[in-house]
């Protein structure tokens, strides 16, 4: 077996250490954003934070595939045969999420029951698990004003 690339592969422990640190830092930033988002009820702001988390997620995916799975150091042909088909995901994600969103708007417009159900708050469940359940209900009411704003837009 001719593994001439094998010699290039020893990019050293330095690269592994660097990528480990990058992945940890990106995860910590994601978590900070996640914790921060809990206290934010502005819809646009929440969307912006979610967008940044998704970008950080893509960065993490890149570092895992490129360095841990070593794809960056393979031949260009191999990189292309893996990456190009996965490019279909760009279309999948846009098309399906757009479709889902459109389906919700249609139902909100033409299905009164669907629309109505999304405005009725559930009473506290008696069969709940004591304090935990009550607390959850109390907490969720705090988010109510935020989601009411969303509904007004539609």
């Amino acid at each position, binding site marked *: 077996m001719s593994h001439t690339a094998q010699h290039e592969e*020893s990019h050293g422990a330095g690269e*592994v250490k660097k990528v480990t640190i990058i992945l940890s830092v990106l995860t910590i930033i994601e978590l900070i954003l996640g*914790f921060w988002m809990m206290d934010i009820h502005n819809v646009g702001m929440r969307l912006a934070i979610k967008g940044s988390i998704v970008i950080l997620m893509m960065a993490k995916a890149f570092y895992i595939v490129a360095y841990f799975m070593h794809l960056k150091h*393979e031949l260009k042909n191999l990189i292309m045969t893996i990456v190009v088909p*996965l490019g279909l995901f760009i279309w999948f*994600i846009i098309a399906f999420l757009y479709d*889902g969103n459109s389906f919700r708007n249609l139902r909100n417009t033409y299905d009164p029951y669907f629309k109505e159900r*999304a405005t009725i708050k*559930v009473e506290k469940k008696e069969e709940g698990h004591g304090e935990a359940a009550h607390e*959850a209900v109390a907490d969720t009411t705090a988010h109510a004003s935020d989601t009411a704003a969303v509904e007004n837009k539609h």
Partner: protein
Amino acid sequence: MSTATVETTKSWGGGKSPFNVEYGKLMMWYFLMSDAFTFGAFLISYGTIRFSTNGWPDPNEVFRSFPFAPEGVHAPLVFVSVMTFILIVSSVTMVLAVKAGQEMDKKAVVKYMIWTIIGGIAFLSCQAWEWNHLHHEGAWWGRNPFLNADGTASSTNFTNYFFTITGFHGFHVFSGVIINIIMLIMTLLDKFEQRGHYLMIEKAGLYWHFVDLVWVFVFTCFYLI
């Protein structure tokens, strides 16, 4: 690859590996690509359903506990970040095992494979605890005790997708641990020393990193956003 005496064709002359990787490794890449489409289909389906409904449970209200914590504790994101770091660390030890294999260092391969296996088992234990905890709270396929974030009634879509996708990922972790154990046994039996290369460790490593990669997406889609 030495047997490649193919007739000359227009597209590829033959006689030489076009991608400069071993056959099995290339096939592992193609398998992982197909697996990526499977997971992608699951996650996109989840996204579509979430976009098509008016309300969705707040993950910070659902995933809020961790082992040995008192009842009713509110600690969102804590336990799942522990799980995430366990998987990242086990991915790093796998990289080190692959590297040791390329240097034909059997002792180091054994050491890092054991650490990787321990990481995988730790992750599975965390997941088993979390599933058990959610099950006790009344969540399961077809049952959703959690309200939407705005206090309205939720459907079972949330729990169905959560258990299906994390379950499918957990099954991948489980099979990854089994593969890693087999690789460890083969290393201990000097199989790779006899072959003169540790390419099998690299292939197992690709699979293991893929499992970590999928968790990056699952973690973001279910716990963060």
